[in-house]
């Protein structure tokens, strides 16, 4: 079957099977490999993307389900060479080690800040609890999100 949807602001038409996941179509058919395949069952959050502005786990969404809708992946955040505020904050706080979980965290953080531009540390921790990081620990990730929110001042 053919589906048509907006990916990072660009209309895309793609042939998919009814049993294909959005995650696989993004990575294998549209070569958007920034979205990571972690567990495949909705446990780790590495595959988080925005669907019509809401965060979803793309391993739990059928590709057929996004027909006519809007998907934003990590590749869609930067404007040209200019990184998004959340991406910048992750760099500045060193909130990245192996980097595998980072796209998922950044998309989740983006969604949090759209919903709640001034979150408390507790609210940040609560919101990102569906995203797992196996190497850095969460301290710098939380700091980066608070920095992006302006709660922690930007580095001059």
């Amino acid at each position, binding site marked *: *079957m053919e589906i048509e949807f907006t990916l990072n602001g660009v209309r895309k038409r793609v042939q998919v099977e*009814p*049993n*294909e*996941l959005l*995650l*696989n179509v993004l990575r294998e058919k549209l070569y958007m490999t920034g979205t990571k395949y972690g*567990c*495949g*069952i*909705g*446990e780790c959050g590495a595959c988080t993307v925005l669907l019509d502005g809401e965060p*979803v*786990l793309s*391993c*739990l*969404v*059928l590709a*057929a*389900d996004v*027909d006519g809708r809007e998907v934003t992946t990590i590749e869609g955040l930067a404007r040209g060479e200019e990184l998004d505020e959340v991406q910048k904050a992750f760099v500045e706080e060193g909130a990245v080690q192996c980097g595998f979980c980072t796209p998922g965290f950044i998309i989740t953080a983006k969604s949090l800040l759209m919903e709640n531009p001034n979150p408390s540390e507790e609210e940040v921790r609560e919101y990102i609890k*569906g995203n797992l990081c196996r190497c850095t620990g969460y301290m710098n990730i939380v700091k980066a999100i608070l920095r992006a929110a302006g709660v922690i001042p930007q580095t001059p």
Partner: protein
Amino acid sequence: MVKVSGVILSGGRSSRFEEGDKALYPVGGKPMIRRVYEALSDVADEVIVAVDSVGRAERYSGVLGDVRFVLDKAGVNGPVRGVCSALEEAGGSRVIILPNDTPFIEPRLLDILLKASEGFHLASPIHPNGFVESAVMVLDRLMGRECLRMASGLGRRPRMTDLHRGLPKVRLINTRAWRLSPRTLLNVNRLRDLETGVRDVEGPLEGDVEIVREMVGGGLETLRDSLWQTVRGGDPWPEARLYLEKGAYMLAAHAFMDSGSRELRWLGESLLRILATGDEEI
């Protein structure tokens, strides 16, 4: 020590599914039953698969990890057969029950249900329109077993909702209030269930629903406003009113379906069709 047992119900014949045994049909490259198994093994201490034949156990064992198979209990009819046999075998005091055709069940839903079941005998999801996902639940093993034993003796085909209607304390968690994606409970009966998009279910229900019934005597049969009174007395109203007031409309439909009155049984069946969120077997 096994505290939480997980059960995958796999006794269905996939009669409406066009591609053979649906449990083995791949979604995202993994058989549906494998996806359910992975979500379940994340939160349960043991996983039991309830099947209707040895052949089926052999077919599934190749795609699953460490599981035990149990055969459907003889003498019990309908979809609760697998639950009955699994409850006999389960080691945990609480049992998570899932069908094998819900490939998008996420571990977060199971965490929410487990927490919600504390202090209750059963927890299941409910949609904002009052439709209860009755085959997805966390169940108190001993109470559940007793309830199904009694339901099997009522002289009619036992239903999954007999558990929701026959236990003293039941908690229904609202999918909208918990921001659960409607996809997480997608039930695949036909191939087209995968092709057509999942829509949010509209409805008036805002929060969770708690059904707490008083036991007048020593046994479940003395539970007020329950399945037991409706089936024995033929008057569904005390039980149905409890559900209607709280928004658990699907349970009210089932209470009407057990009525002595033909008109109320018709009403119950009609209400159930209106509430159905997809292609459920009613």
